[in-house]
Protein backbone atom coordinates (compact mmCIF):
# COMPACT_ATOMS: atom_id res chain seq x y z
CA UNK A 1 0.00 0.00 0.00
CA UNK A 2 1.84 3.07 -1.10
CA UNK A 3 0.35 6.45 -1.72
CA UNK A 4 2.97 7.28 -4.32
CA UNK A 5 1.58 4.68 -6.72
CA UNK A 6 -1.54 6.68 -7.42
CA UNK A 7 -1.33 10.31 -6.39
CA UNK A 8 -4.30 12.45 -7.31
CA UNK A 9 -3.52 16.03 -8.17
CA UNK A 10 -5.54 19.19 -8.02
CA UNK A 11 -4.49 21.88 -10.44
CA UNK A 12 -4.87 25.39 -9.04
CA UNK A 13 -4.44 28.38 -11.31
CA UNK A 14 -3.96 31.48 -9.24
CA UNK A 15 -2.51 34.24 -11.40
CA UNK A 16 -1.07 32.37 -14.31
CA UNK A 17 -0.87 33.60 -17.90
CA UNK A 18 -2.27 30.24 -19.10
CA UNK A 19 1.07 29.08 -20.46
CA UNK A 20 1.94 26.89 -17.47
CA UNK A 21 -1.69 25.83 -17.08
CA UNK A 22 -1.90 24.51 -20.55
CA UNK A 23 1.41 22.70 -20.11
CA UNK A 24 0.12 21.09 -16.91
CA UNK A 25 -2.95 19.87 -18.78
CA UNK A 26 -0.73 18.78 -21.69
CA UNK A 27 1.12 16.51 -19.24
CA UNK A 28 -2.08 14.54 -18.79
CA UNK A 29 -2.74 14.10 -22.51
CA UNK A 30 -1.53 11.14 -24.58
CA UNK A 31 1.93 12.34 -25.60
CA UNK A 32 3.25 12.94 -22.08
CA UNK A 33 0.68 10.80 -20.31
CA UNK A 34 1.15 11.43 -16.60
CA UNK A 35 -1.46 8.77 -15.94
CA UNK A 36 1.23 6.12 -16.40
CA UNK A 37 2.50 7.22 -12.97
CA UNK A 38 -1.00 6.76 -11.60
CA UNK A 39 -1.53 10.51 -11.61
CA UNK A 40 -5.13 11.56 -11.96
CA UNK A 41 -6.29 15.15 -12.29
CA UNK A 42 -9.17 15.70 -9.96
CA UNK A 43 -11.49 18.67 -9.60
CA UNK A 44 -11.97 18.69 -5.86
CA UNK A 45 -9.33 19.45 -3.20
CA UNK A 46 -10.88 16.97 -0.75
CA UNK A 47 -9.69 14.02 -2.88
CA UNK A 48 -6.26 15.34 -3.81
CA UNK A 49 -2.77 14.48 -2.57
CA UNK A 50 -0.65 16.88 -4.61
CA UNK A 51 -1.53 20.48 -5.23
CA UNK A 52 -0.06 21.82 -8.47
CA UNK A 53 -0.07 25.62 -8.37
CA UNK A 54 0.64 27.83 -11.37
CA UNK A 55 1.02 31.59 -11.32
CA UNK A 56 1.81 34.18 -8.70
CA UNK A 57 -0.52 35.27 -5.93
CA UNK A 58 -2.53 38.47 -6.06
CA UNK A 59 -4.74 40.25 -3.57
CA UNK A 60 -7.96 38.71 -4.77
CA UNK A 61 -7.00 35.08 -5.12
CA UNK A 62 -4.87 34.79 -1.96
CA UNK A 63 -7.83 33.57 0.07
CA UNK A 64 -8.93 31.16 -2.67
CA UNK A 65 -5.48 29.58 -2.52
CA UNK A 66 -5.47 29.33 1.29
CA UNK A 67 -8.95 27.90 1.27
CA UNK A 68 -8.01 25.18 -1.23
CA UNK A 69 -4.79 24.36 0.64
CA UNK A 70 -6.65 23.89 3.91
CA UNK A 71 -9.08 21.50 2.28
CA UNK A 72 -6.48 19.09 0.89
CA UNK A 73 -6.20 16.18 3.36
CA UNK A 74 -2.87 15.20 4.99
CA UNK A 75 -0.29 14.18 3.89
CA UNK A 76 -0.17 16.84 1.21
CA UNK A 77 2.50 18.18 -1.12
CA UNK A 78 2.51 21.52 -2.89
CA UNK A 79 4.27 21.81 -6.24
CA UNK A 80 4.89 25.32 -7.61
CA UNK A 81 5.07 25.18 -11.41
CA UNK A 82 6.72 27.97 -13.37
CA UNK A 83 8.69 31.10 -12.63
CA UNK A 84 5.62 33.03 -11.47
CA UNK A 85 4.59 30.42 -8.92
CA UNK A 86 8.16 30.10 -7.65
CA UNK A 87 9.11 33.76 -7.24
CA UNK A 88 6.55 35.99 -8.93
CA UNK A 89 8.59 35.79 -12.13
CA UNK A 90 8.40 38.55 -14.68
CA UNK A 91 5.42 40.02 -12.82
CA UNK A 92 7.04 40.18 -9.37
CA UNK A 93 6.89 43.99 -9.12
CA UNK A 94 3.42 44.47 -10.56
CA UNK A 95 1.21 46.44 -8.20
CA UNK A 96 -1.37 43.74 -7.75
CA UNK A 97 1.06 40.83 -7.28
CA UNK A 98 2.03 39.68 -3.77
CA UNK A 99 4.73 37.28 -4.91
CA UNK A 100 5.37 33.56 -5.32
CA UNK A 101 3.11 30.90 -3.87
CA UNK A 102 5.52 30.30 -0.98
CA UNK A 103 4.60 33.72 0.42
CA UNK A 104 1.23 32.29 1.36
CA UNK A 105 1.41 28.49 1.74
CA UNK A 106 4.33 26.12 2.32
CA UNK A 107 5.77 24.82 -0.97
CA UNK A 108 7.60 21.47 -1.18
CA UNK A 109 8.98 21.50 -4.72
CA UNK A 110 9.56 24.07 -7.44
CA UNK A 111 9.61 23.65 -11.22
CA UNK A 112 11.43 26.60 -12.84
CA UNK A 113 10.92 27.90 -16.37
CA UNK A 114 8.73 30.25 -18.35
CA UNK A 115 6.98 28.06 -19.27
CA UNK A 116 8.45 24.80 -17.98
CA UNK A 117 8.37 21.97 -20.49
CA UNK A 118 5.95 19.11 -19.78
CA UNK A 119 8.95 16.85 -19.12
CA UNK A 120 10.07 19.24 -16.39
CA UNK A 121 6.61 19.29 -14.84
CA UNK A 122 6.56 15.48 -14.87
CA UNK A 123 9.95 15.48 -13.14
CA UNK A 124 8.47 17.81 -10.56
CA UNK A 125 5.52 15.51 -9.98
CA UNK A 126 7.84 12.50 -9.63
CA UNK A 127 9.96 14.47 -7.12
CA UNK A 128 6.79 15.32 -5.24
CA UNK A 129 5.90 11.62 -4.99
CA UNK A 130 8.88 10.77 -2.78
CA UNK A 131 8.19 13.81 -0.59
CA UNK A 132 4.61 12.61 -0.27
CA UNK A 133 5.76 9.15 0.75
CA UNK A 134 8.17 10.59 3.34
CA UNK A 135 5.47 12.81 4.76
CA UNK A 136 3.22 9.80 5.13
CA UNK A 137 5.93 7.79 6.92
CA UNK A 138 6.78 10.67 9.24
CA UNK A 139 3.09 11.49 9.72
CA UNK A 140 3.80 15.11 8.78
CA UNK A 141 0.73 17.28 8.93
CA UNK A 142 0.34 20.43 6.86
CA UNK A 143 -0.21 23.47 9.02
CA UNK A 144 -3.57 25.09 8.63
CA UNK A 145 -3.06 28.43 6.95
CA UNK A 146 -5.15 31.05 8.67
CA UNK A 147 -7.61 32.98 6.59
CA UNK A 148 -7.14 36.58 7.51
CA UNK A 149 -10.17 38.08 5.90
CA UNK A 150 -8.92 40.58 3.40
CA UNK A 151 -5.56 41.02 5.08
CA UNK A 152 -2.28 40.58 3.30
CA UNK A 153 0.37 38.16 4.59
CA UNK A 154 2.76 40.07 6.84
CA UNK A 155 5.85 39.23 4.77
CA UNK A 156 4.35 40.48 1.52
Amino acid sequence: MTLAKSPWIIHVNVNSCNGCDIEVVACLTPLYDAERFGVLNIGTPKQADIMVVTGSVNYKNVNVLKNLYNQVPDPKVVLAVGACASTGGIFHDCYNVIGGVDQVIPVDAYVPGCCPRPEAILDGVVAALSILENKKKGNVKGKEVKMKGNEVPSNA
Partner: protein
Amino acid sequence: MTTVIPFGPQHPVLPEPVSLKLELDNDVVIGALPSLGYVHRGLEKFIDTKDYNQTTYICERICGICSALHGITYTMAVEKLFDVEIPERAMYIRVIVGELNRVHSHLLWLGLFADGFGFESLFYECWKYREAVLDVLEKITGNRVIHSISKVGGASKDLTKEHIDLILKMLDTVESQVKDLEKVFINNYTVKQRTVGLATMSKQLAYEAGTVGPTLRGSGVHSDLREEADWDIYKDLGFKAVVEKDGDCYSRTKVRVFELYESIKLIRNAISKLPNGEIATPIKGSPTGEAIMRTEQPRGEVVYYVKGNGTKNLERLKIRTPTFANIPSLLLTLPGIKLADVPIVVLTIDPCISCTER
Protein backbone atom coordinates in the same frame (compact mmCIF):
# COMPACT_ATOMS: atom_id res chain seq x y z
CA MET B 1 -37.83 30.80 -5.31
CA THR B 2 -34.46 31.98 -6.54
CA THR B 3 -31.13 30.61 -5.44
CA VAL B 4 -27.71 32.11 -6.09
CA ILE B 5 -25.04 29.59 -7.04
CA PRO B 6 -21.42 30.64 -7.42
CA PHE B 7 -19.70 29.12 -10.49
CA GLY B 8 -15.93 29.20 -10.05
CA PRO B 9 -13.30 30.49 -9.34
CA GLN B 10 -12.12 26.88 -8.90
CA HIS B 11 -14.21 24.67 -11.17
CA PRO B 12 -13.36 21.40 -12.96
CA VAL B 13 -14.21 22.62 -16.47
CA LEU B 14 -12.51 25.98 -16.10
CA PRO B 15 -8.76 25.93 -16.48
CA GLU B 16 -8.78 29.51 -15.26
CA PRO B 17 -10.25 31.33 -12.29
CA VAL B 18 -13.34 33.33 -13.14
CA SER B 19 -16.38 33.52 -11.00
CA LEU B 20 -19.99 33.84 -12.13
CA LYS B 21 -22.78 34.39 -9.66
CA LEU B 22 -25.73 32.54 -11.18
CA GLU B 23 -29.21 33.41 -10.05
CA LEU B 24 -31.39 30.35 -10.50
CA ASP B 25 -35.09 29.66 -10.60
CA ASN B 26 -35.18 25.90 -9.98
CA ASP B 27 -32.81 24.71 -12.71
CA VAL B 28 -32.95 27.69 -15.03
CA VAL B 29 -30.57 30.63 -14.91
CA ILE B 30 -32.36 33.96 -14.68
CA GLY B 31 -29.38 36.19 -14.09
CA ALA B 32 -25.59 36.07 -14.17
CA LEU B 33 -23.03 38.41 -12.70
CA PRO B 34 -19.35 37.92 -13.51
CA SER B 35 -16.76 38.59 -10.85
CA LEU B 36 -13.28 39.29 -12.19
CA GLY B 37 -9.90 40.08 -10.71
CA TYR B 38 -8.47 36.67 -9.86
CA VAL B 39 -5.79 37.07 -12.55
CA HIS B 40 -5.34 40.83 -12.49
CA ARG B 41 -1.64 41.64 -12.39
CA GLY B 42 -1.48 45.21 -13.65
CA LEU B 43 0.62 44.95 -16.80
CA GLU B 44 -0.35 48.35 -18.15
CA LYS B 45 1.65 49.93 -15.31
CA PHE B 46 4.80 48.08 -16.41
CA ILE B 47 5.62 50.67 -19.08
CA ASP B 48 6.87 53.01 -16.31
CA THR B 49 9.83 50.73 -15.61
CA LYS B 50 10.36 48.91 -18.92
CA ASP B 51 11.30 50.51 -22.23
CA TYR B 52 9.37 49.95 -25.42
CA ASN B 53 11.53 47.01 -26.53
CA GLN B 54 11.22 45.18 -23.23
CA THR B 55 7.47 45.71 -23.24
CA THR B 56 7.25 43.30 -26.21
CA TYR B 57 8.12 40.45 -23.87
CA ILE B 58 5.64 41.67 -21.25
CA CYS B 59 2.88 41.73 -23.87
CA GLU B 60 3.68 38.17 -24.93
CA ARG B 61 3.11 37.04 -21.38
CA ILE B 62 -0.39 38.48 -21.19
CA CYS B 63 -1.61 35.13 -22.35
CA GLY B 64 0.13 31.83 -22.94
CA ILE B 65 -2.23 30.69 -25.70
CA CYS B 66 -2.29 33.62 -28.12
CA SER B 67 1.11 34.97 -27.05
CA ALA B 68 2.57 35.30 -30.55
CA LEU B 69 -0.25 37.52 -31.75
CA HIS B 70 -0.02 39.74 -28.67
CA GLY B 71 3.65 40.36 -29.41
CA ILE B 72 3.00 40.92 -33.11
CA THR B 73 0.17 43.41 -32.47
CA TYR B 74 2.21 45.36 -29.94
CA THR B 75 5.22 45.64 -32.22
CA MET B 76 3.03 46.70 -35.14
CA ALA B 77 1.48 49.41 -32.97
CA VAL B 78 4.91 50.76 -32.00
CA GLU B 79 6.05 50.60 -35.63
CA LYS B 80 3.11 52.87 -36.45
CA LEU B 81 4.56 55.41 -34.00
CA PHE B 82 7.97 55.25 -35.70
CA ASP B 83 6.30 55.27 -39.11
CA VAL B 84 8.71 52.71 -40.54
CA GLU B 85 8.31 50.21 -43.35
CA ILE B 86 9.36 46.81 -42.17
CA PRO B 87 10.79 44.19 -44.56
CA GLU B 88 8.19 42.09 -46.35
CA ARG B 89 9.84 38.86 -45.29
CA ALA B 90 9.33 39.82 -41.65
CA MET B 91 5.61 40.36 -42.29
CA TYR B 92 5.32 36.93 -43.87
CA ILE B 93 7.15 35.30 -40.96
CA ARG B 94 4.73 37.02 -38.59
CA VAL B 95 1.77 35.71 -40.55
CA ILE B 96 3.13 32.16 -40.61
CA VAL B 97 3.84 32.04 -36.87
CA GLY B 98 0.61 33.88 -36.08
CA GLU B 99 -1.45 31.38 -38.04
CA LEU B 100 0.39 28.40 -36.54
CA ASN B 101 -0.52 29.95 -33.21
CA ARG B 102 -4.16 30.07 -34.28
CA VAL B 103 -4.13 26.41 -35.35
CA HIS B 104 -2.80 25.33 -31.96
CA SER B 105 -5.21 27.61 -30.11
CA HIS B 106 -8.28 26.34 -31.96
CA LEU B 107 -7.24 22.70 -31.48
CA LEU B 108 -6.73 23.44 -27.79
CA TRP B 109 -10.17 25.00 -27.53
CA LEU B 110 -11.89 22.17 -29.40
CA GLY B 111 -10.31 19.77 -26.92
CA LEU B 112 -11.36 21.75 -23.86
CA PHE B 113 -14.84 22.12 -25.31
CA ALA B 114 -15.13 18.35 -25.84
CA ASP B 115 -13.97 17.88 -22.25
CA GLY B 116 -16.65 20.37 -21.18
CA PHE B 117 -19.41 18.00 -22.20
CA GLY B 118 -17.61 14.88 -21.11
CA PHE B 119 -16.29 13.63 -24.47
CA GLU B 120 -12.87 12.75 -23.07
CA SER B 121 -11.54 10.69 -25.94
CA LEU B 122 -12.17 13.58 -28.33
CA PHE B 123 -10.37 15.91 -25.92
CA TYR B 124 -7.31 13.67 -25.92
CA GLU B 125 -7.43 13.33 -29.69
CA CYS B 126 -7.43 17.12 -30.23
CA TRP B 127 -4.55 17.66 -27.84
CA LYS B 128 -2.56 14.84 -29.40
CA TYR B 129 -2.83 16.51 -32.83
CA ARG B 130 -1.94 19.87 -31.29
CA GLU B 131 1.43 18.56 -30.08
CA ALA B 132 2.66 18.32 -33.69
CA VAL B 133 2.03 22.06 -34.15
CA LEU B 134 3.82 22.85 -30.90
CA ASP B 135 6.83 20.74 -31.93
CA VAL B 136 7.19 22.77 -35.10
CA LEU B 137 6.76 26.07 -33.24
CA GLU B 138 9.44 24.97 -30.82
CA LYS B 139 11.81 24.16 -33.70
CA ILE B 140 11.23 27.58 -35.28
CA THR B 141 11.16 29.81 -32.22
CA GLY B 142 12.80 27.87 -29.42
CA ASN B 143 9.84 27.67 -27.05
CA ARG B 144 6.59 25.76 -27.03
CA VAL B 145 4.48 28.51 -25.57
CA ILE B 146 6.13 31.93 -25.62
CA HIS B 147 7.39 32.41 -29.17
CA SER B 148 8.96 35.91 -29.21
CA ILE B 149 8.96 35.94 -33.00
CA SER B 150 8.30 39.63 -33.39
CA LYS B 151 10.41 42.58 -32.32
CA VAL B 152 10.04 46.28 -33.03
CA GLY B 153 11.37 46.62 -36.58
CA GLY B 154 10.80 43.11 -37.87
CA ALA B 155 11.10 39.47 -36.94
CA SER B 156 13.58 38.20 -34.37
CA LYS B 157 14.22 34.83 -36.02
CA ASP B 158 14.43 33.78 -39.63
CA LEU B 159 12.81 30.75 -41.26
CA THR B 160 15.28 28.34 -42.83
CA LYS B 161 14.67 25.83 -45.61
CA GLU B 162 14.59 23.08 -42.99
CA HIS B 163 11.89 24.91 -41.00
CA ILE B 164 9.73 25.32 -44.07
CA ASP B 165 9.95 21.63 -44.91
CA LEU B 166 8.95 20.79 -41.34
CA ILE B 167 5.96 23.13 -41.45
CA LEU B 168 4.71 21.77 -44.78
CA LYS B 169 5.08 18.17 -43.64
CA MET B 170 3.27 18.92 -40.38
CA LEU B 171 0.45 20.74 -42.20
CA ASP B 172 -0.25 17.68 -44.37
CA THR B 173 -0.71 15.43 -41.35
CA VAL B 174 -2.63 18.01 -39.33
CA GLU B 175 -4.97 18.70 -42.23
CA SER B 176 -5.95 15.05 -42.56
CA GLN B 177 -6.36 14.83 -38.78
CA VAL B 178 -8.57 17.93 -38.77
CA LYS B 179 -10.72 16.22 -41.39
CA ASP B 180 -11.26 13.39 -38.93
CA LEU B 181 -12.08 15.84 -36.16
CA GLU B 182 -14.45 17.73 -38.42
CA LYS B 183 -16.52 14.58 -38.97
CA VAL B 184 -16.97 14.24 -35.22
CA PHE B 185 -17.61 17.89 -34.37
CA ILE B 186 -20.06 18.40 -37.23
CA ASN B 187 -21.91 15.09 -37.34
CA ASN B 188 -21.59 13.38 -33.97
CA TYR B 189 -24.84 12.81 -32.12
CA THR B 190 -23.42 13.72 -28.69
CA VAL B 191 -21.89 16.98 -29.89
CA LYS B 192 -25.05 18.03 -31.69
CA GLN B 193 -27.25 17.05 -28.78
CA ARG B 194 -25.33 19.32 -26.46
CA THR B 195 -24.79 22.30 -28.76
CA VAL B 196 -27.51 22.73 -31.40
CA GLY B 197 -29.92 25.51 -30.52
CA LEU B 198 -28.15 26.31 -27.26
CA ALA B 199 -27.63 29.96 -26.25
CA THR B 200 -28.64 31.39 -29.61
CA MET B 201 -27.50 34.95 -30.26
CA SER B 202 -29.16 36.77 -33.12
CA LYS B 203 -27.06 38.75 -35.58
CA GLN B 204 -28.19 42.05 -34.10
CA LEU B 205 -27.73 40.97 -30.48
CA ALA B 206 -24.20 39.71 -31.07
CA TYR B 207 -23.26 42.90 -32.90
CA GLU B 208 -24.69 45.27 -30.31
CA ALA B 209 -23.27 43.28 -27.42
CA GLY B 210 -19.86 44.11 -28.88
CA THR B 211 -18.74 40.51 -29.32
CA VAL B 212 -15.72 39.77 -31.51
CA GLY B 213 -14.07 36.91 -33.33
CA PRO B 214 -15.66 33.46 -33.74
CA THR B 215 -18.43 34.44 -31.32
CA LEU B 216 -19.48 37.26 -33.65
CA ARG B 217 -18.92 35.32 -36.86
CA GLY B 218 -20.92 32.41 -35.45
CA SER B 219 -23.91 34.75 -35.42
CA GLY B 220 -23.63 35.56 -39.10
CA VAL B 221 -21.75 38.87 -38.94
CA HIS B 222 -19.03 39.14 -41.55
CA SER B 223 -16.21 40.63 -39.50
CA ASP B 224 -12.61 39.45 -39.54
CA LEU B 225 -9.79 41.94 -39.13
CA ARG B 226 -7.54 39.87 -41.33
CA GLU B 227 -9.45 41.49 -44.21
CA GLU B 228 -8.51 44.94 -42.98
CA ALA B 229 -6.02 47.25 -44.67
CA ASP B 230 -3.37 47.18 -41.93
CA TRP B 231 -2.70 43.56 -42.76
CA ASP B 232 -2.78 43.89 -46.53
CA ILE B 233 -0.71 40.78 -47.14
CA TYR B 234 -3.67 38.66 -46.08
CA LYS B 235 -5.44 39.79 -49.25
CA ASP B 236 -2.61 38.45 -51.40
CA LEU B 237 -2.90 35.14 -49.58
CA GLY B 238 -6.52 34.66 -50.60
CA PHE B 239 -8.06 34.94 -47.16
CA LYS B 240 -11.81 34.42 -46.78
CA ALA B 241 -13.60 34.92 -43.47
CA VAL B 242 -15.54 31.95 -42.09
CA VAL B 243 -19.11 32.93 -41.18
CA GLU B 244 -21.91 30.72 -39.84
CA LYS B 245 -25.38 32.13 -39.49
CA ASP B 246 -27.20 30.20 -36.75
CA GLY B 247 -25.68 31.90 -33.72
CA ASP B 248 -25.86 28.90 -31.38
CA CYS B 249 -23.05 26.98 -29.68
CA TYR B 250 -22.94 24.53 -32.61
CA SER B 251 -22.34 27.28 -35.13
CA ARG B 252 -19.60 28.89 -33.00
CA THR B 253 -17.93 25.47 -32.91
CA LYS B 254 -18.23 25.14 -36.69
CA VAL B 255 -16.56 28.52 -37.21
CA ARG B 256 -13.52 27.36 -35.27
CA VAL B 257 -13.33 24.01 -37.06
CA PHE B 258 -13.48 25.62 -40.52
CA GLU B 259 -11.02 28.34 -39.51
CA LEU B 260 -8.46 25.60 -39.01
CA TYR B 261 -8.59 24.87 -42.77
CA GLU B 262 -8.40 28.59 -43.53
CA SER B 263 -5.29 28.98 -41.37
CA ILE B 264 -3.65 25.95 -42.93
CA LYS B 265 -4.34 27.39 -46.40
CA LEU B 266 -2.91 30.76 -45.35
CA ILE B 267 0.31 29.22 -44.04
CA ARG B 268 0.77 27.23 -47.26
CA ASN B 269 0.18 30.31 -49.41
CA ALA B 270 2.47 32.45 -47.26
CA ILE B 271 5.25 29.89 -47.58
CA SER B 272 4.88 29.71 -51.35
CA LYS B 273 5.11 33.50 -51.61
CA LEU B 274 7.77 34.01 -48.92
CA PRO B 275 10.10 36.73 -50.29
CA ASN B 276 13.85 36.78 -49.72
CA GLY B 277 15.70 39.56 -47.98
CA GLU B 278 16.26 41.15 -44.61
CA ILE B 279 14.09 40.26 -41.64
CA ALA B 280 14.43 43.49 -39.64
CA THR B 281 15.07 47.21 -40.05
CA PRO B 282 17.11 49.01 -37.41
CA ILE B 283 15.01 51.39 -35.30
CA LYS B 284 16.55 54.55 -33.87
CA GLY B 285 15.17 57.06 -31.42
CA SER B 286 12.17 56.96 -29.17
CA PRO B 287 8.49 56.67 -30.03
CA THR B 288 6.28 59.75 -30.15
CA GLY B 289 2.61 60.18 -30.96
CA GLU B 290 -0.29 57.82 -30.51
CA ALA B 291 -1.60 54.91 -32.51
CA ILE B 292 -4.29 52.25 -32.44
CA MET B 293 -3.50 48.82 -33.86
CA ARG B 294 -6.01 46.01 -34.23
CA THR B 295 -5.47 42.43 -35.32
CA GLU B 296 -7.50 39.25 -35.33
CA GLN B 297 -6.46 36.84 -32.60
CA PRO B 298 -7.77 33.29 -32.27
CA ARG B 299 -10.44 34.66 -29.92
CA GLY B 300 -11.19 37.79 -31.93
CA GLU B 301 -10.22 41.39 -32.35
CA VAL B 302 -7.53 42.79 -30.06
CA VAL B 303 -7.06 46.56 -29.74
CA TYR B 304 -3.71 48.03 -28.78
CA TYR B 305 -3.43 51.72 -28.01
CA VAL B 306 0.08 53.12 -27.54
CA LYS B 307 1.16 56.64 -26.74
CA GLY B 308 4.79 57.75 -26.72
CA ASN B 309 6.21 61.03 -25.49
CA GLY B 310 9.72 60.98 -26.92
CA THR B 311 11.31 58.92 -24.14
CA LYS B 312 12.27 55.25 -24.14
CA ASN B 313 9.24 54.45 -22.00
CA LEU B 314 5.78 54.65 -23.46
CA GLU B 315 3.37 57.06 -21.81
CA ARG B 316 0.31 54.82 -22.05
CA LEU B 317 -0.41 51.31 -23.20
CA LYS B 318 -3.98 50.09 -23.33
CA ILE B 319 -4.97 46.63 -24.40
CA ARG B 320 -8.56 45.60 -25.11
CA THR B 321 -8.47 41.84 -25.42
CA PRO B 322 -11.09 39.70 -27.21
CA THR B 323 -12.50 37.98 -24.13
CA PHE B 324 -13.01 41.36 -22.49
CA ALA B 325 -15.40 42.17 -25.33
CA ASN B 326 -17.09 38.77 -25.26
CA ILE B 327 -17.87 38.53 -21.53
CA PRO B 328 -20.81 41.01 -21.60
CA SER B 329 -22.55 38.71 -24.11
CA LEU B 330 -22.71 36.07 -21.36
CA LEU B 331 -24.96 38.39 -19.37
CA LEU B 332 -27.38 38.27 -22.28
CA THR B 333 -27.14 34.61 -23.33
CA LEU B 334 -27.03 32.84 -19.95
CA PRO B 335 -30.56 33.75 -18.75
CA GLY B 336 -32.89 30.94 -19.80
CA ILE B 337 -30.14 28.30 -19.88
CA LYS B 338 -30.23 25.18 -17.69
CA LEU B 339 -27.54 25.06 -15.00
CA ALA B 340 -26.00 21.92 -16.53
CA ASP B 341 -25.43 23.75 -19.82
CA VAL B 342 -23.71 26.77 -18.26
CA PRO B 343 -20.14 25.39 -18.62
CA ILE B 344 -20.71 24.78 -22.36
CA VAL B 345 -22.10 28.25 -22.97
CA VAL B 346 -19.24 29.83 -21.05
CA LEU B 347 -16.71 27.75 -23.02
CA THR B 348 -18.13 28.70 -26.43
CA ILE B 349 -16.92 32.29 -26.11
CA ASP B 350 -13.45 30.72 -25.65
CA PRO B 351 -12.77 32.58 -22.41
CA CYS B 352 -9.20 33.61 -21.77
CA ILE B 353 -9.26 35.22 -18.36
CA SER B 354 -5.59 36.12 -18.13
CA CYS B 355 -6.08 38.18 -21.32
CA THR B 356 -9.18 39.83 -19.93
CA GLU B 357 -7.68 41.01 -16.70
CA ARG B 358 -4.03 41.45 -17.69
